[in-house]
């Protein structure tokens, strides 16, 4: 399969990329969502702007009580990061569940968030960890809470002419526990259901899902059922039973709405048990 013809440029900096980014252009990071779409001719930009090698978009660092992951950091780099293993182990472990080694070598966290596939893994983890997505346009930067970034089926708060530059995650307090559980589509490894849970030392828990609905979401129903409670088996059972209540459920040839809701409960329970 051959894509439609397009031009290709590889700017050296975010500023240069922003200057080139017009209606007819598309950013190219790892290309592991975009190139397959180009091959299927589902997308036909006039020009690709390759941002994969821009140094300021790469790497993971700690800064003012936050872990900052550059948008161009690959899944494989996240999986191997000692900083993340130490502070946000769910990210290193979750990265290892994305696709396969070859996909992880190319795909980036920024590309995944921008693409907003309803079955992508990062969105659930970034929402549960209370992350912020930093977007840069020609007129400067703004930051959007991950919980507000995903607005629908493949759609986000990203405006035309903006680039995701980094993802900022608060360094969790000592004693925070977190876990991501995923039921993977056996061929693509995408999440049919993915549940990310972060339990803070003060007892509060944040729960987020991917794969279940047309966009990833924070599940306040489950969170409320856990509020002020010890995570006993009964409490977990009762809270997980509320998973994905009141959201519109996805359905496809692999999993019906009913089956997805069942999986959401089961994977929520597993994630909660892991942090109990």
């Amino acid at each position, binding site marked *: 399969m051959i*894509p439609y013809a*397009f031009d290709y440029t590889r700017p050296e900096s975010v500023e240069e990329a922003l200057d080139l980014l017009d209606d007819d252009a598309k950013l190219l990071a790892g290309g*592991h969502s975009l190139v397959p779409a180009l*091959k299927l001719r589902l997308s036909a930009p006039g020009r690709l702007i390759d941002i994969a090698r821009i140094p300021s978009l790469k790497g993971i660092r700690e800064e003012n009580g936050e872990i900052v992951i550059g948008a161009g950091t690959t899944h494989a780099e996240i999986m191997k990061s000692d900083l993340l293993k130490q502070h946000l182990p769910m990210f290193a472990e979750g990265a290892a569940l994305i696709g396969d*080694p*070859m996909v992880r*070598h*190319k795909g980036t966290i920024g590309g995944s968030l921008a693409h907003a596939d309803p079955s992508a893994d990062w969105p659930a983890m970034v929402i549960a960890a209370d992350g912020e997505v930093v977007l840069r346009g020609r007129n400067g930067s703004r930051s959007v809470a991950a919980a507000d970034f995903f607005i629908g089926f493949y759609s986000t708060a990203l405006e035309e002419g903006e680039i995701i530059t980094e993802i900022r995650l608060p360094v969790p307090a000592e004693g925070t526990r977190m876990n991501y559980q995923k039921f993977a589509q056996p061929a693509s490894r995408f999440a049919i259901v993915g549940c990310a849970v972060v339990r803070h030392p003060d007892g509060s828990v944040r729960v987020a899902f991917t794969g279940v609905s047309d966009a990833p979401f924070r599940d306040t129903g489950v969170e409320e059922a856990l509020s002020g409670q010890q995570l006993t088996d009964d409490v977990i059972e009762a809270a997980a039973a509320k998973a994905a209540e009141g959201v519109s459920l996805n359905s496809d040839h692999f999993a019906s709405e009913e089956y997805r809701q069942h999986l959401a409960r089961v994977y929520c329970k597993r994630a909660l048990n892991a942090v109990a």
Partner: protein
Amino acid sequence: MTQITVTVNGTSQTHEVEPRQLLVYYLRDKLGLTGTHIGCDTSSCGACTVHMDGMAVKSCSILAVQADGCEITTIEGLAQGDQLHPVQEGFKECHGLQCGFCTPGMIMATVDMLQNNPDPTEEDIRHALEGNICRCTGYHNIVRSVQWAAEKMKTSAKVLDGASVSPSPVYASVNLNQQQQQQL
């Protein structure tokens, strides 16, 4: 057209390519390196796996222009003259292939895995090859081939470490072949 320079199996290549040309077609059609196969063409099967700057990637999902300035290794670049790479040898010794269509990709993915994890468990091997699909073997002999190669690479590494006192690597590999054959 865009000019790219890529080092493929140690040789620098400069060509004008269309930006939409996929790396796998560049390797196969422009350079004649047809050892890299196209199985699914939809990023799923891993038959097109090559190394880009030392890491396994699916060349059907990468544009040739994205490889500009990079080092590419294909299956043709693994053997040293007549001496097969230990992973190639492993697939030969342990019957790790039937039709052989998936094999170049399997081998490239395996070589990458063993660079990072020289002593993999069976589970590690099965996970590392998740992106490579084989329609023939049922995978068991592929796993054995990888185990054989890991063992051989460990032994050769030890032999090379103590080169002045140990038997030559060639001698060691002959011993290992016999020992491994008995196990099979």
